[in-house]
């Protein structure tokens, strides 16, 4: 189910019978046709175990199921919206950045430590993202929110990308990430550059970066 971008802060989704999509609660702006919005207790797909998993991982964002036939406009909080199309790969994104996504996508939770070991966990703590992140896998579209516009930076094996942890939005592909710190004597005496921590992403894929260092 493709999302159509109406402008940088609003998307239109077409809902057809038999297809469903998930969206963040309260993010519907307007709709035409017969569409129902059901609060989703599990916070997404899967059964009770996935729900408990998400609760424990603090990735249980309030979601709702959108079903019926018609068109729905989504937007939230004046944030910019980036539509990402997935063709089989996995997208890693914080749950509270998810605006809407296809019901066909497979939703999961990932432990930061499994991507980058201890440093991954440190990274999660440092960037305020916690120890877990949400994964979406399969074929479909995802609408992701960001503060300020979003740019897509491709990652190739020869060219790792360094990103400010606060400006990081999401990434997909076969990417390893680690927190590289450039802490020096200057930081200890309060003369640091303010860029002591960077997220280093290497492998092949793409990372989405927002034009702001503000969290949602």
């Amino acid at each position, binding site marked *: 189910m493709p999302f159509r971008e*109406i*402008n*940088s*802060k*609003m998307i239109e989704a077409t809902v057809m019978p038999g297809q469903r999509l998930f969206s963040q*609660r*309260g*993010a*519907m*702006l*307007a*709709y*035409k046709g017969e569409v*129902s*919005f*059901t*609060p*989703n*207790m599990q916070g997404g797909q899967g059964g009770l175990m996935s729900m408990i998993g998400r609760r424990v991982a603090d990735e249980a964002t*309030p979601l*709702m199921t959108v079903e019926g036939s018609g068109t729905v*406009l989504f*937007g*939230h*909080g*004046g*944030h910019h919206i980036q539509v990402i199309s997935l063709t089989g790969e996995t997208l890693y994104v914080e749950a509270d950045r998810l605006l809407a996504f296809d019901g066909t996508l497979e939703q999961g939770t990932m432990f930061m430590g499994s991507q980058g070991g201890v440093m991954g966990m440190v990274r999660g703590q440092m960037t305020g993202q916690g120890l877990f992140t949400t994964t979406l896998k399969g074929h479909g579209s995802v609408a992701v929110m960001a503060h300020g516009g979003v740019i897509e930076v491709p990652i190739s094996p020869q060219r790792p990308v360094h990103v400010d942890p606060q400006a990081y939005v999401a990434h997909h592909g076969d990417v390893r990430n680690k927190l590289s710190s450039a802490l020096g004597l200057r930081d200890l005496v309060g003369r640091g550059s303010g860029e002591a921590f960077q997220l280093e992403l290497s492998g092949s894929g793409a990372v989405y970066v927002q034009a702001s260092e503000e969290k949602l």
Partner: protein
Amino acid sequence: MTTYPGTGPVIHDPSTLPVDDNVNAYTFCVELKGSEWFLQKGKMIAYYGSMEFNGIGHGRLDRLVRTSFHSPLHASDWVVASGSGKMLLADRAFDVNSFDLEEGNLTIRSGNLLAFQPSLALKQSIVPGFLTLIGTGKFVAASNGPVVFMEPPIRVDPQALVGWADCPSPCHHYDHGYMTGLMGGLRALTGMGGASGEEHQFEFVGAGTVLLQSSEALMAEQAAGAVPHEPGVPGGGGAPGHQGQQAGAPRLPGQLGDLQRRFGL
């Protein structure tokens, strides 16, 4: 300092500023040639030329106010700009747009309206918090993100609604499907599962245009003035048997209110 590759910052002077048009998405330029504009207090950010800003209620402006300002109770929020020159309007980095009305009517959320020509008449809408403009002329409105125009029939989140034109029938729509049945009852009893946040919309049908802003971040409400306490005036509190909302419990936008009671839960 460049804004985009290949273009430097644009420097304007009085001759290059546009006439009654947008300078960029966030700034609007009004040209005054002995004419007058109504504007909300504090929305002027700069001006060239010689202009006067007078609060409404001055004796001199009485005539103007009599013909085009019919919302006496919030007159203190508005000023009249007169003189000649160019004036820039902006509002908290929100998107600013101008709209032309030709013998038309348009109702807009009071916080979103920045300025209007005196050839338009401003009146309070029957819907609380909204203002109606009637006549021919130009007005300037702010919105969070660009304004999107939609045709009815449509249901709109209350917070995303900017205004509507020529639609005679804005009404409330409650989605009670989620409140009934076993799961709905469980939700209402335990509070678990929560509300989808989408059980209340404004519904528009008929011919017209509905204006949406692309986000749910509200502009600050402008006081639209209280309505006279008369029988038959909605919100006036004058009708017998009309209880109104419980005092001391202000209703938040998007809140369920006494919806549960209404469905007997």
